[in-house]
Every structure is written in C-alpha cells, then in structure tokens.
C-alpha cells in the first residue's frame, strides 16, 4: 500500500472526552512517560489527539442506551457553542433497566454541539 492521504486535521474531534476518567488516566500515564524521558510532549499530544478521535468514534458507534435526566437548573451558559449547565440534585433514569440514580448536590453538564467538530 502506498502512503495514503494524510489523516485529516487533528482538530476535527472534540477534546471534551479528555475530561473523563479514561482521558485523565491516559493523561497521567503520558505525563509519567514524559517525566521519565521516554517520550516527548509532541508525541503525547499526538496520542491525546488520537484519543479524541477514538473516543468520539467509539461513543458514536457502540453506545445504544437511552436515559432521561430531571433536575433543578441552577446555572446555564452558552459560550463558543459549548453549553454548560449546573444541575441541582439531578435524577437520572436508565431506560433499559429502569434504574434511578440520584445525585446529591451539584452536577455539571458540559456539552459541545453535535456534528460540528468536523466542520472546524
């Protein structure tokens, strides 16, 4: 196989999943490898960009379950097409097994616009 066209710009996937436990675990692992001199920060950034892509694609293709959430909305904000909601005592309902999860206190939602990451 010839070296195909370069992979599209790495900025075409949102970085928001980096804030998950999976993303922060990766970040910590990369940080240790940088500290110990095994990899350089440039390579770490490429790995994080790959994580953005892998996480976005896997979430879009593998998830099936639906749910609902009800809450008192204490703060809302829209900035650069990113919505932030701060919920007070939200209740999540899992539709597939009708489990209910209540969260005492505040819970923050950070949401990027669906389908527009590629346009950037």
């Amino acid at each position: 196989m010839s070296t195909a066209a370069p992979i599209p710009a790495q900025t075409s996937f949102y970085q928001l999943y980096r804030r998950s436990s999976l993303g922060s675990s990766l970040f910590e692992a990369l940080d240790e490898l940088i500290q110990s001199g095994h990899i350089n920060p440039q390579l770490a950034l490429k790995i994080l960009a790959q994580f953005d892509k892998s996480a976005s694609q896997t979430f879009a293709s593998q998830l099936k379950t639906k749910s609902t959430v009800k809450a008192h909305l204490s703060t809302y904000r829209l900035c650069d097409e990113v919505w932030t909601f701060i919920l007070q005592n939200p209740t999540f309902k899992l539709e597939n097994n009708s489990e209910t999860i209540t969260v005492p206190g505040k819970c923050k939602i950070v949401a990027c616009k669906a389908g527009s990451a590629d346009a950037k």
Partner: protein
Amino acid sequence: MSNRVVPAVYRTIMNDVIENVRTEFDEVGVEEAVLNELLRSWEAKVAMSRVADFSLDPTMGPIAANFPPAPPGQPQPAVLPLNGASRPSTPAVGSNTKLKGAAAGGEEGDKAVKDEKKDGNGGGATGGDEDEINSDLDDPEDDLDDDDEEAGGEGGDLVIALYEKVQRVKNKWKVTLKDGLVSVNGKDYLFSKCSGEFEW
C-alpha cells in the same frame, strides 16, 4: 445509560488508541516497549478508578480486584467523600508502592493540564489596568467560576456529551444530549441519547 457497558467501551477505545499510535512511535524511533508500558500504566489507572466493574477484563481484572467498584448508583449517604471516590489517593492495598507513586504523579499531571489550558487561552492578561477598571463587573463572573469549581472540579459530578437540541420556554428547559458520559457518585455511565428536563 449504562454502567455495565463501560469496561467494554473503555477497552475498545484503549486498544484503538494504542493501535493507531503504533506507527507514530515507529516514526519518531520510540521503542515498542514504551508503548506497552503506556498501555499497562493506563490500564492500571483505569482499573483503580473504580468507576465500573473491570474484574472481567483480562488485563485490568487482576488490578481491579483490589479496587472493587463503588456501590451501585443508588442514593448514597451524603457523608461519603464523593469528591475523592473516583480518584483513590491512597490505595486500599498499601503493599504496592509503585501504584502510590503513580497516584502522586497524577496530581502533577492535573496541574499540568490546568497550566496547559491557561496557555491555550493564549495572550494572557493584557495588563493589570484593565482588571482594576472593570473590577466591579468582574466580580459576578468570579462567583460563577467558583460555582464551576464546586460542581465540575476534579472528581466532581460531571456529564460530558454532545448536544442536539437546547430549547427553553420561560423557565423550563428541554435538552437532547448524545454520545455522553455521566460521572456521578464515583461511577461512570454511558448513554447514546439522554433527554433532560430542567427548571430554572
């Protein structure tokens, strides 16, 4: 929304990332052992996070056995240290000093993230004068930021998702989210779609 799919989905993402950066490692001449170490270290951190039951995963299972998942996502007593739940600072099994070191390194990592974000905003402050002039206006914003820290700080309860629709009628909000991750009460849940109804 499901907690049970978390181990399989996380495993898919981890394998996908590792396989796709293999050529990058090759190109810059970093040996494969480093890539394997990256995966091992990543797996250990995820297994210790207790955000789901990783005991059935071939490589994360043995580590996860020492870090059983948090109790089911039922209402938990408010006295539980929720903020620390997803990030065990002191492993329950104190024998493995290497893991302890890893946890300490993680905190540095967090700081690095924040620094990076600051840098990312670019520019930096354009001068102290502006702050003084606008100090009255800035105050409410500072309060909002405090609110953020409280709700969405490290280990706090957080939902990360894409939004399809956000509608408001008077004080009633309807929000449609997709491809999201809910991190609450020390556990992770994933959903394809989530519709939210909020009252402001």
